[in-house]
């Protein structure tokens, strides 16, 4: 039942992404509405699958990297659906929905081995840590999409060479102001995620800092966003540079998430999961 729901959810996301992709090429009012509905349906099936999994396992479905990405994909889609409802910026879907498909499919392909012992997921600190980090990452994923849209549009206007997307993409200032909101709400969440992470780490390993590669990468990522926030607030950084930094930041997140989980040793990773598990 659960895996059937996950397959249905994946298909829904795929159809949604395809709908948004066609919308990118053809301006038809129905397309984004259909695509949005499919994404919503996918999120419902996906959510139901996660709940079922949690009920069966008796804890948060976060014991493997597959589960973790699956949860993240769900949070990401829900975040997008909410943003879409608030902003009515339909074209954003064309850039965001492919990411949802990528996250979803990669969660199906990644290993299922446990990272952490089941008992760890009873702690409120860990749940707070994971939730805020995932929400922050979802917002930063949207920020990444906005950055790409901004760079495409800015390039066209700057080079005076308007491509197909010139008409379809919104104004630079709109993209920039949405990006600002995403950044300003994502950054405190990320900070909170890091702090709860340190608190939790100090509770389990007696030290908040253990030179775990994921810890190091997370702090580097946080620093990238911190620079972005600071520059925006202090000197009014915006536009192209802010977009590039947002893209860099999200790349760091992906790197942190995937590479450190798969390759490096540490208490966040799959390999070390055996030790701690």
């Amino acid at each position, binding site marked *: 039942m659960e895996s059937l729901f996950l397959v249905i959810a994946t298909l829904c996301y795929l159809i949604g992404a395809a709908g948004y992709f066609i919308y990118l090429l053809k301006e038809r009012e129905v397309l984004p509405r259909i695509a949005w509905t499919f994404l919503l349906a996918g999120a419902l099936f996906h959510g139901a699958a996660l709940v079922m999994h949690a009920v069966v396992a008796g804890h948060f479905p976060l014991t493997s990297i597959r589960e973790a990405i699956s949860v993240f994909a769900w949070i990401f889609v829900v975040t997008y659906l909410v943003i879409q409802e608030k902003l009515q910026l339909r074209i954003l879907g064309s850039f965001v929905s492919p990411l949802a498909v990528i996250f979803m499919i990669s969660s199906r392909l990644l290993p299922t081995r446990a990272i952490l012992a089941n008992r760890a997921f009873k702690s409120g600190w860990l749940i707070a840590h994971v939730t805020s980090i995932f929400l922050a990452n979802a917002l930063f994923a949207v920020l990444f999409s906005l950055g790409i849209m901004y760079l495409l549009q800015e390039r066209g206007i700057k080079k*005076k060479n308007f491509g197909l997307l010139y008409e379809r993409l919104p104004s630079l*200032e709109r993209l920039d102001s949405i990006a600002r909101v995403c950044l300003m709400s994502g950054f405190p969440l990320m900070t909170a995620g890091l702090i709860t992470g340190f608190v939790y780490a100090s509770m389990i390993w007696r030290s908040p800092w253990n030179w775990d590669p994921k810890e190091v990468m997370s702090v580097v990522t946080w620093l990238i966003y911190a620079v972005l926030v600071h520059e925006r607030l202090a000197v009014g950084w915006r536009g*192209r540079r802010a977009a590039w930094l947002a893209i860099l930041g999200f790349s760091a997140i992906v790197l942190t998430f995937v590479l450190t989980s798969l390759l490096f040793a540490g208490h966040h990773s799959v390999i070390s999961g055996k030790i701690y598990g």
Partner: protein
Amino acid sequence: MSHIILLGMNHKTAPVEIREQLALACQKEVNPLHMLPHLQQVEELIFLSTCNRVEFLFTCGAVAEAISEVKALLRTHVGLPSSIPLDSYLYVHKDMEAVKHLFMVASSLDSMVVGEPQILGQLKGAYRAAVEYRTVKMILNRLMHKSFSVAKRVRTETCIGSCAVSVSYAAVELARKIFGQINDKRVLLIGAGEMAELAAEHFLRQGVKSMTVANRTLERAVELAARFKAQTAPFDLLLEEMKKTDIVVSSTGAREPIITYRDVRARMRERRNKPLFFIDIAVPRDIDPKVNEIDNVYVYDIDDLQGVIEFNREERLNQARTAEHIINEETIKFRTWMESLDVAPTIVSVREKAERIRQNELRKTFSQLPDLTGRQKEAIEILSASIIKKLLHDPIMFLKKKAQRDTRAVYMDFTLRLFNLTEGIDEVDPAQVESEKALDETFLKAAKK
């Protein structure tokens, strides 16, 4: 025969300082048309002054003398110091060259921004003034009306006009792509020019928050500010003004860029990197193209804007060629009319018409009376020929007598109309005649006041 001379300077030949001084002096002082009675050699006179051109259009008998009189009028009446060498800035077109130039001006092909629509209105204004001062007579009257209809033809048969309108439309659309909403944005208008004003008007109509005008001459700035409900800013403090501005429309006649890379770069930090959109309508350019390299700064010159519009270069060139063809055609028509005003061709065409009628009538008569003998036919031919000769004798003598008078063109024109000889010279369409009548009536009313 009268010559048509056009003497003037425009944005291509004179630096902006000279043109501004001239245009301003001409506006403030009594209209130079006032001086016509003092000009011995000049018969008819029209004076056109816009921000990009100052032109005198006149007719005369003795060309060289009239030109020096008009130049003297320029210098003394306008109060231009003799230290300024005028000749190098002036162009002088004679006869058909002058006609062609006027047609080019009227159809906005000689404008800084080809196709801008205001020049026609300015030309009509100049004509209205000339009617009020009664300085136009038959030739310039006809020429001006002709130039209006040529402009109309160019506008309807090519898309040169829509090009210019869509340039300012494109500017607003681009601003929307950069800023999204433009109703909280401030526009700075630097310099003045028909196209810049058009763009400014467009921005204003789209509801920008405020507009500021900076111009080298304060009078002009004040005038524009009143029109656009804008504030004025000192020209020297332009760069300071830029800190508060989002959109800059620039169209000065400066030879060198007035806004450089360093100027803008230094001020972006103070602007907190808010986007800045430059629309550079001036030729040569006011904004250093390098400014476009600065982050969050977008510079579009007139070519870029025209590139935005669908027309490609080839298409625009074709349009310009079509327009030029129309103008050449109309110039030739006008020349035919001018030439017909001379005595000899008038007499010839009167005689030709009479002979044509006589031949036609003879043919009809002979075909109805097949019994006529050779001698009878000959008698009828001689009879008809002598009737025509005698009938035309007095009118032709009259025309020959007028040949030495200045007013002969009026008589020639009248004769052509009397005998309906204008066929093939220049058809005037009835609608135009009506509209011209209305125009003339308003002028006459204005003149009476």
